[in-house]
């Protein structure tokens, strides 16, 4: 199809689709007034029944924990996919030549950047850990904390050489941690089965409301998810950094 034809076809179809949107959405209850008995019931039970003060976390890791299991594995799968796709190093690209070293020279970052980045690392790690461990209490959790933790090694990367990067994040360990984090989720679910409950049934003591150990299995899952997300994001970002990937091959 020519560009013009494509555009015309799309505009006509989009008009049709817009009508569908309009007709459908116009019968929605107005935003802000959508009755939600599901949400209300959840809000009522999370604190008394689960000792979790963040209802979203309760839904994510307990009430609808199985969804999150799937979600973690979507992340896990995609990271495997990205790594496999990007590590496609066996054959040379079409313009076959050996030159690889030349482009690698990045101008060294200025001292200010370097210092700032290094100083930021401990703060980032601390914040990430805080977020992972407080998932059941306050907004945040394994996912958000995991992404924050994943930015710490990248700050180091910004600050200087790959060498430091490798020291902080030995890739084998990152890959292992990612997979282990993913496996933890299933393992916890299976442990609940072994204890006589159903899969992912929250059978651990619920702990004091507001404490770090409240929520039964939720903090444990949070830790696993944090590990997995952190490892996964680091791996995915690294996969885009070709040079590092090559080193990884060896």
């Amino acid at each position: 199809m020519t560009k013009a034809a494509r555009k015309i076809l799309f505009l006509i179809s989009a008009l049709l689709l817009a009508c569908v949107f309009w007709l459908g959405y116009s019968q929605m209850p107005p935003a802000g007034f959508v009755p939600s008995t599901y949400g209300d019931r959840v809000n009522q039970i999370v604190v008394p029944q689960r000792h979790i003060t963040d209802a979203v976390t309760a839904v994510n890791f307990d009430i609808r924990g199985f969804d999150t299991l799937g979600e973690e594995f979507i992340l896990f799968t995609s990271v495997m996919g990205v790594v496999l796709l990007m590590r496609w190093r066996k054959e040379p690209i079409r313009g076959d030549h050996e030159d690889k070293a030349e482009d690698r020279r990045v101008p060294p970052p200025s001292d200010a950047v370097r210092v700032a980045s290094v100083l930021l690392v401990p703060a980032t790690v601390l914040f990430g850990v805080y977020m992972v461990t407080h998932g059941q209490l306050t907004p945040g959790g394994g996912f958000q904390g995991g992404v924050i933790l994943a930015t710490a090694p990248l700050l180091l990367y910004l600050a200087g050489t790959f060498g430091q990067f490798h020291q902080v994040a030995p890739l084998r360990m990152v890959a292992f941690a990612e997979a282990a984090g993913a496996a933890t989720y299933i393992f916890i679910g299976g442990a609940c089965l072994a204890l006589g409950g159903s899969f992912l049934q929250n059978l651990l003591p619920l702990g004091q409301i507001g404490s770090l150990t409240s929520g039964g299995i939720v903090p444990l899952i949070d830790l696993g998810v944090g590990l997995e997300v952190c490892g996964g994001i680091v791996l995915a970002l690294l996969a885009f950094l070709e040079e590092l990937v090559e080193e990884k091959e060896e």
Partner: protein
Amino acid sequence: MNFLPYLVSAWLFLIGLYGVVTSRNLVHLCICVGVIQSSSYVLLLAIGYRIGRPAPIFIDIKPGTPAVDPVVQALMLTDIVVEVTVMALLLALAVQIHKRNGTLDPNQLHAIKG
């Protein structure tokens, strides 16, 4: 005014589609897919919101107080994770396509025909 979020959501869906259809660069195209995804955030957000109610965090407010819908927010969290992962995959594919073809312009990729 209470229908504005729905309108915004529909608009994002359509404009994202427009971007995908008219894109001249695969990376741009992937990002437009991201805009389509953000349409679903706005829709879900609007559905979960209840005027005058606080966030469902029962630390400062008494447990059992009516709050906005946490279920929808949990769905949105899942949605965001799905977005970032799918985006990573799409970008990886785009990079590989570029590596093989030396171009990111879908108009210049003519490998598959018929």
